[in-house]
């Protein structure tokens, strides 16, 4: 079962290493990890997607809590969170097929951000499902390169007091 952990940490050097090495050391696999500074410059938010059963998740959460630099951990409820990922696809695109690809991008509300002689680069954001569906279609043209940010997420507003 996949869990999305939203982890508030102190924005200090080495914190990412501490978190990542804890996952590795305790035998947990990170599916994705995204880090960035928050509204408070002394804090960063890590969004970590991890596949784990309940017992393992409880253990990894408790172990994370033991890190002095970790301030708060939320296991986000998939039904009650907003999650997004950003992907850049560089797709094979001979001039005669460009319009097909542009149409696919439009359907997924993605943007063409670069055009080469034989390629298009598409910027897309969305949930993992949407991006997977889009990637499926683009694969037919040949994806030359791909970069993704990993998921970021927040609990929906209704959860806040």
């Amino acid at each position, binding site marked *: 079962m996949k869990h999305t952990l939203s982890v508030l940490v102190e924005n200090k050097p080495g914190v990412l*290493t501490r978190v990542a090495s804890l996952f590795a050391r305790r035998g947990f696999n990170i599916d994705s990890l995204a880090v960035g500074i928050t509204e408070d410059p002394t804090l960063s938010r890590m969004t970590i997607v991890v596949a784990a059963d309940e017992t393992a998740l409880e253990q990894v959460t408790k*172990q994370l809590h*033991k*890190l*002095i630099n970790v*301030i708060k951990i939320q296991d986000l409820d998939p039904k009650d969170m907003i999650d997004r990922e950003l992907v850049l696809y560089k797709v094979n695109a001979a001039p005669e097929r460009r319009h097909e690809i542009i149409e696919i991008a439009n359907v997924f509300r993605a943007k063409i951000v670069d055009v080469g002689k034989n390629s298009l680069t598409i910027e897309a954001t969305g949930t993992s499902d949407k991006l997977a569906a889009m990637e499926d279609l683009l694969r037919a043209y040949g994806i030359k390169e791909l970069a993704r940010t990993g998921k970021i997420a927040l609990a929906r507003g209704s959860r806040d007091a």
Partner: protein
Amino acid sequence: MRVTAAQAIVKSLQAEGVEVVFGYPGGVVLPLFDALYEAEGIRVILTRHEQGAAHAADAYARVTGKPGVVIVTSGPGAANTVTGIANAYMDSVPIVVITGQVATHVLGTDAFQETDITGITIPITKHNYLLDDAEDAAQVMAEAFHIATTGRPGPVLIDVPVDVSRGELTFKYPEKVSLPGYKPTVKGHAKQIKEAANLIAKARKPLLYVGGGVLSSDGARELKELAELMQLPVVTTLMGKGAFPEDHHLFVGMPGMHGGKFTNYAITETDLLFGIGVRFDDRVTGKLATFASKAKIVHVDVDPAEIGKNRSVDIPIVGDARTVIAAVTAELRKMGAEPRTEAWMRVIDDWRARYPFHYHQSATSIMPEYAVERVRELTKDRPTVYCTEVGQNQMWACQYLKIREPRTWASSGGLGTMGFGLPAAIGAQLGRPDHLVIDIAGDGSIQMNSQELATAAINNLPVKVVILNNGYLGMVRQWQELFYGKRYSSSTLPQDCPDFVKLAEAYGAFGVRATTPAELDAALTAAFEHPGPAIVDVRVEREENVFPMVAPGGSIDEMLGGIPGGPVSEMLDAEEFVEEVWE
């Protein structure tokens, strides 16, 4: 007043009441050692190896309850402390390790004697720091001591680049430390405590399973009060030794791989296993599926991550062991609960009488168990701290010594570090100058840090090393005998290389040898009465095994060796009266 960061670090040590620092100087840590020179109230013990410094600080902390402090240089100096830090981490011992580091402008360039010690020690410290600004020196020191000594204690490392240690600041030691991501829970949850007390009041076969957490919270007195109030039998783990007097009628030994049969039977049969400051370590539990499988489990620990880690728990209580024990006792008093363990104690006493630790005495050769028994008897009227190395010597010490007081036992538990004992004895002697300090050693382990004999001799620390010299890495040999077809691969050591008596003499210590049972008492007494450090080279029966023994991965009530008996189901069937008392 402006001071350098090095001076601020020393002033911080003084503010923390540190009396002893264990260390070893080197290039980039010289500003710190310079600040230590003539620092009031701080004795610097120069060990002969940085690992020795770390173990000495570790044992100093174990016997005094105060944090141990280590100061070493960068690169190899820092790296040499790694085993000591890992040891303290596994056994939850508060030590603060300060390492020199190359200057900030060359950090990351593979400079001379540079090593990424903060990176290396992430998994084996509770927390660590790279001090990158002299202004933070006092704050970081205060945080380090706070983190090391509160909650579940553990090692904290501070890496200090040489230029930072020369940088200046206005020294003011923080009175209070507040860390947003660190708030250990001390008081247990009131409802859980009530439920736990209820379970104790109702249980017919309760058992207290006690570990190092009771010692680190200084909860021995509270434990005794609880045990005596409800007449609860107590088992203590290797780390918990001394938390409950081993000569008390409610004491039921050490559980696990080389624990007592009677102890393991009690765990297998109990209907309420009340764990306090323990972590259900694999050496204790054996096969988890059959460990205390008839019992409800209460688990008290200050570290929430330990609760439910290895074994599911019925009543989890996060909190400081002493505080929680006191609260449970108060609850039981309030309930007017009465002890109801008389029948249970009769069963346990019967097991204890029938399955004591046992060995075959010899008239000609010294049995290692006998040697430990003699150490016990010859020290029973003296305040004594017992340290051990790791292996057979350690297990016999566990089985045959009687630890009566908290903080008079220092043994490497979780990490199982050979070479711990001698530096530990040195640290213990500094912490307890009025105690006799004995290291029960093996001929293998002692050679891993025997250079520290110099530290003991030069500082006039009268530690006594009793080497159970069997010419083997005894525990390795035992496993090879039992599980590897007696193929003694790389486990044989010549009994007379080195000549331990001469080794002692080379350092100006006292050395004596015993080769027959008749010589043993005189040798031990001579060493114990000698005013300085001493080695007793006890030539013991070479192929004696530590029994009983749970085979790796086996159920703890099915033990090899010792007096035949078990598993516990059969033991109970054979006992008609047992059924009677349960009904």
